[in-house]
């Protein structure tokens, strides 16, 4: 008898033989049936079959043999004694069919109660040695194991279990040998093909371990003493990578996790003896996942017990699990110096996972782990680390660890308690460091913005609180690489690249500024009880940021803002704790000095582009000090601001805006009147205004400065127009300013702008007109009327110019011109802004911020002329409307 050529033929042959076999059985012709069965089994002898094909045939045959087996069991007592048959089938010609038949008969016999089970089982497993071809042998033994599934020795007694497990183990060992041997068959160049086939067959071997775990059940002693050592020995001895990886994995998966915990040492030790090509990372990962599953279950149970009020004792979490892994890790690191940083970090990430699952509050463990990686990194030197960036970032951020539920708390603990975390981070490339730090900072910021931390604090939890200076120091040490980050490209380089670098730099510095707020907010108030202690910590942050050199232009404003907050706190304390008034006054002075130091640091380090900001910071400090009646400090900040203005603000546009801002700030001060401070400051401001480069800037600055002699109410300090009598007001000076301003407007050569300036002055006059009578403001009807007259005259000459141009247009374009000027134009297209720039109406779909880029040369002169005309018309309309309310307006002549 021989086998078919193709799989299809084989399948049809099997079907055919099955039919014949069944027919013979129906006719109770057992011998014929066995003959057909044997013919069908011959198909399994085909050496050319792929594992998958072989499996297909095997399934078919398995079903057919099941039919036969059922018949045999039924007819055991009437004629065909199975003991006889067992002998009989030994005479089948070929070994494969013979053994399949033998197992079929043998296992049928096992179903008979009085059969000699042990003997039969031993015999069958012994006979299986007859097939040494790997694929055929594997399937045969698989068949044996499937058939004996329910038929091993019954009972729970020790001997039976031991026998059964030995039976399975023996079968497993043989199968494993066959499986490993498959690798070495055929030609060398087919090695990959072999490996592929083996992977397809691995389930057959693995199934033995599944069977074994069912037999062992919860018998730890048996497993520990009898089974695991043998299994591990097999795994180690075969020295085969595929086998070792697969079987180690299966052992971890199929046996209960408690067993692994109890046999952890031998499992770990074995992993050291494996082939060096085996991925240790993978093996450890599997094991740890199983152990984590165990602990999670226990924790769940304990929780349930608690909630159910169950009195029974909670299960304890073994304390040394991490220790055991740690020892293993040290051994591994020693014995395998060839392990790359990448592999090691993978293992360490797994062990971190374990530690965080088992001992969530133990940071020391993590410290040990990071320390080990740091050592490894140092050993490998810098160049190797660069390749390993992404996994290092993974290790440091632990983003993939699902066990970490709240990263902000995790990072916070790492930073404050885990020194080697910082060491390891400092060994990474700048890019990785930034990546890690950004992730960390974001977790804090997200946390603080999304959850109302105060709410969680009420529940007796107070996460993310800094409780000591040392903790803050550690934070700052972690942040140092970001603080000192340099824009590596120095001046004069290609514009785009510089901008890009600067942009990236600014993004990191933005994070730092934000983290400064975070740190100050998270100071534990029960430790840092006084403002003084807070100041000390803020100074620590400031000193750390100082290392950033030029970068402080991004970070110092945040420091200053926090100082301001402290000043305001002081001022509130001062009001409430009366006895310590002088103490708080001195404290506030001290803080202002710190701020002043910050500003001069910026002045010295940051270069020209930051001068405008420095100027404004000085002014805001001046305003704050004024509000607190710290007169001399306020004056000093104002004079600092003047210093910056005079020496460092050169651009005329910046100068103009800066001066107006000075005026705005001064106008709101209240404490500077003593010692003539206020007067000298406002005179100086006005003087600067009148000396600005451009006439139009002079004009505007001076009319703005007129407000410096006309204090207006600040309702939050109880002032009220009409009630308060001691406003600082000098109408005479107001008028002087306006006159001076008008002179500047008049001397402006561009007559469109000159007109516009006058209309603006007219509006300022109206402001004062509303505010009071001529004897107070000195801006009276006659002055206003004179101004209106002047404007009208100037506009007339403007119109003249326009009419000429219009007639030029009319000459070519004979459209009707009914005399009303500007009707052919869109009257409202342009207006003039606060600083004298023409503003074009922004298109909705076109960001109107673009209107600064709009060029005057694109404007038609007629459009320009409309600007003062329409502004004047609107002003006139306003005057007309005011007549209904205020009779004095009726005296204004339009």
């Amino acid at each position, binding site marked *: 008898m021989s086998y078919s050529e193709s799989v299809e033929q084989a399948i049809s042959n099997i079907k055919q033989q099955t039919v014949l076999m069944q027919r013979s059985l129906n006719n109770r012709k057992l011998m014929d049936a066995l003959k057909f069965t044997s013919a069908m089994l011959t198909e399994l002898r085909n050496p050319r079959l792929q594992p998958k094909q072989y499996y297909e045939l095997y399934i078919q045959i398995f079903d057919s043999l099941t039919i036969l087996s059922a018949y045999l069991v039924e007819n055991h007592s009437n004629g065909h004694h199975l003991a006889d048959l067992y002998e009989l089938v030994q005479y089948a010609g070929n070994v494969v069919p013979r053994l399949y038949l033998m197992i079929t008969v043998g296992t049928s016999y096992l179903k008979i109660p009085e059969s000699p089970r042990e003997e039969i089982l031993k015999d069958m497993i012994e006979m299986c040695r007859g097939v040494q071809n790997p694929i055929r042998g594997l399937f045969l033994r698989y068949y044996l194991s499937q058939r004996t599934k329910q038929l091993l020795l019954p009972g729970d007694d020790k001997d039976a279990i031991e026998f059964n497990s030995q039976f399975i183990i023996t079968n497993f060992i043989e199968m494993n040998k066959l499986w490993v041997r498959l690798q070495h068959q055929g030609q060398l160049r087919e090695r990959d093909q072999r490996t592929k086939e083996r992977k397809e067959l691995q389930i057959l071997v693995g199934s033995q371990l599944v069977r074994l775990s069912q037999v062992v059940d919860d018998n730890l002693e048996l497993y520990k003493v009898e089974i695991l050592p043998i299994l591990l020995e097999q795994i180690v001895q075969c020295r085969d990578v595929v086998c070792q990886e697969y079987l180690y994995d299966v052992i971890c998966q199929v046996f209960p996790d408690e067993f692994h915990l109890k046999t952890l040492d031998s499992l770990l030790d074995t992993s050291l003896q494996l082939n060096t090509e085996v991925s240790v990372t993978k093996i450890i990962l599997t094991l740890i996942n199983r152990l984590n599953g165990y602990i999670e279950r226990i924790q769940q149970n304990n929780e349930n017990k608690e909630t159910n009020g169950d009195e029974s004792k909670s299960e304890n979490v073994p304390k040394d699990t991490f220790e055991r892994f740690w020892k293993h890790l040290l051994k591994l690191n020693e014995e395998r110096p060839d392990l790359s940083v990448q592999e090691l970090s993978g293992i360490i990430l797994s062990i971190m996972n374990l530690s965080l699952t088992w001992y969530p509050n133990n940071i020391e463990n993590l410290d040990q782990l990071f320390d080990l990686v740091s050592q490894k990194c140092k050993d490998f030197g810098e160049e190797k680390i660069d390749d390993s960036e992404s996994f290092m970032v993974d290790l440091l951020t632990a983003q993939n660890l699902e066990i970490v539920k709240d990263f902000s708390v995790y990072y916070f603990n790492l930073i404050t308690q885990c020194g080697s975390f910082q060491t390891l981070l400092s060994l990474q490339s700048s890019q990785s460091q930034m990546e890690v730090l950004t992730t960390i900072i974001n977790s804090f910021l997200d946390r603080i913005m999304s959850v109302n931390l105060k709410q969680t604090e009420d529940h007796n939890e107070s996460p993310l609180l800094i409780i000591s200076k040392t903790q803050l120091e550690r934070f700052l040490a972690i942040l140092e690489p970001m603080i000192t980050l340099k824009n590596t490209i120095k001046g004069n380089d290609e514009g785009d690249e510089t901008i890009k670098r600067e942009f990236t730099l600014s993004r990191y510095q933005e994070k730092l500024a*934000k983290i400064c707020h975070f740190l100050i907010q998270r100071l534990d108030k029960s430790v840092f009880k006084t403002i003084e202690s807070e100041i000390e910590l803020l100074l620590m942050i400031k000193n750390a940021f100082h290392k950033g050199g030029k970068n402080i232009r991004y970070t110092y404003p945040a420091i200053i803002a926090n100082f301001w907050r402290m000043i305001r706190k002081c001022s509130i304390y001062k009001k409430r704790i009366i006895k310590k008034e002088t103490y708080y006054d001195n404290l506030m002075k001290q803080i202002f000095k710190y701020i002043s130091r910050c500003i001069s640091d910026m002045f010295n380090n940051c270069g020209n582009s930051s001068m405008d900001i420095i100027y404004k910071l000085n002014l805001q400090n001046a*305003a704050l000090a004024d509000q607190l009646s710290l007169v001399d400090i306020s004056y000093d900040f104002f004079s600092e601001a003047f210093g910056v203005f005079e020496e460092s603000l050169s651009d005329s546009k910046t100068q103009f805006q800066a001066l107006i801002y000075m005026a705005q700030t001064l106008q709101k001060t209240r404490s500077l009147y003593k010692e003539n401070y206020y007067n000298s400051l406002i005179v100086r401001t006005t003087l600067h205004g009148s000396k600005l480069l451009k006439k139009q800037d002079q004009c505007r600055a001076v009319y*703005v400065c007129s407000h410096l002699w006309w204090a207006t109410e600040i309702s939050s300090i109880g002032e009220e127009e009409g009630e308060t009598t001691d406003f600082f007001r000098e109408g005479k000076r107001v008028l002087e300013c306006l006159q001076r301003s008008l002179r500047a407007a008049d001397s402006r050569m561009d007559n469109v702008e000159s007109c516009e300036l006058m209309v603006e002055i007219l509006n300022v006059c109206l402001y004062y007109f509303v505010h009071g009578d001529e004897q107070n403001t000195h801006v009276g009807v006659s002055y206003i009327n004179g101004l209106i007259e002047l404007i009208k005259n100037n506009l007339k000459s403007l119109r003249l110019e326009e009419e000429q141009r219009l007639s030029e247009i009319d000459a070519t374009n004979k459209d009707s011109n009914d005399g009303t000027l500007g009707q052919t134009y869109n009257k409202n297209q342009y207006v003039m802004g606060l600083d004298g720039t023409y503003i074009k109406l922004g298109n909705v779909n076109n960001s109107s911020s673009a209107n600064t880029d709009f060029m005057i040369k694109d404007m038609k002169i007629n459009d320009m002329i409309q600007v003062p005309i329409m502004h004047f018309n609107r002003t006139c309309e306003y005057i007309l409307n005011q007549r209904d309310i205020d009779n004095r307006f009726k005296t204004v002549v339009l």
Partner: protein
Amino acid sequence: MLVLAISDAHIPSRAIDIPSKFKKLLSIPDKISHVALLGNSTQSPEFLNFLQTVSPNISIVRGEFDKSSIIIDTHESNGGSGNYEEKNIPLVAVIKEGDFRIGCCNGYTVVPKSDPLSLLALARQLDVDIMLWGGTHNVEAYTLEEKFFVNPGSCTGAFSADWPILNDSISNNITDIETNKKDSATESDDITQSEDGSEQLENNKPDTKDEEQEQEDKNATLEEESLNEEDISISEVEISGSNVPSFCLLDIQGSTCTLYIYMFIDGEVKVDKVVYKKPTDE
């Protein structure tokens, strides 16, 4: 058409970010057609990128702490090739929505600061119906001379170096526009109205202050110098001198503008609504 008026973020120098509830509210794409960014909000590229997602049409005006130009990373908003564009920031901008001309400015060059008459003059100069301004960190909305003035406050509740606002109740700041409109074609009326508001404020304040004072005096006499800083709790508003985080949305339909004021109070977002109609000619 929705216009978002938002101002004085001071990120990162004075605040970490806007409240996440604000972010959620604003993160609805294609809802808001225009953003008016009223100053002191350009130091944070991250925040600007966020606004880009709210609407690509952003009008930025300069606040005192903005540089005269900003770099915009067009890369992130457009998924382009990392282009960086430098844009100048003007002091004022004018946009048109519906029948309205809307003026935007931070107001740091308006003297006296936030003075209604000065703002009115500016509105006249710019020929606008609605004047949006910022700089005070204090949400406000009123009509004056038939023009509508809106200050969205600070969207982060950032520290303000102005005179601290002693009263944190917003209702005083938002004068009831509906009643205002009927009898307030005049600016003098408006002034009395706001004075009424501050009068109430002043009436309330001294009483409570006195009580506290008494209480503390008692403590001081009883336990000598036992009153410490830790015994005094200070609210965030007191420190920042600012109001609660706030922003405004203007829903513009033809000649009607509905103003929604969003405020972040005690972890919740509160919304107020005010309607302004453009006066018809004649």
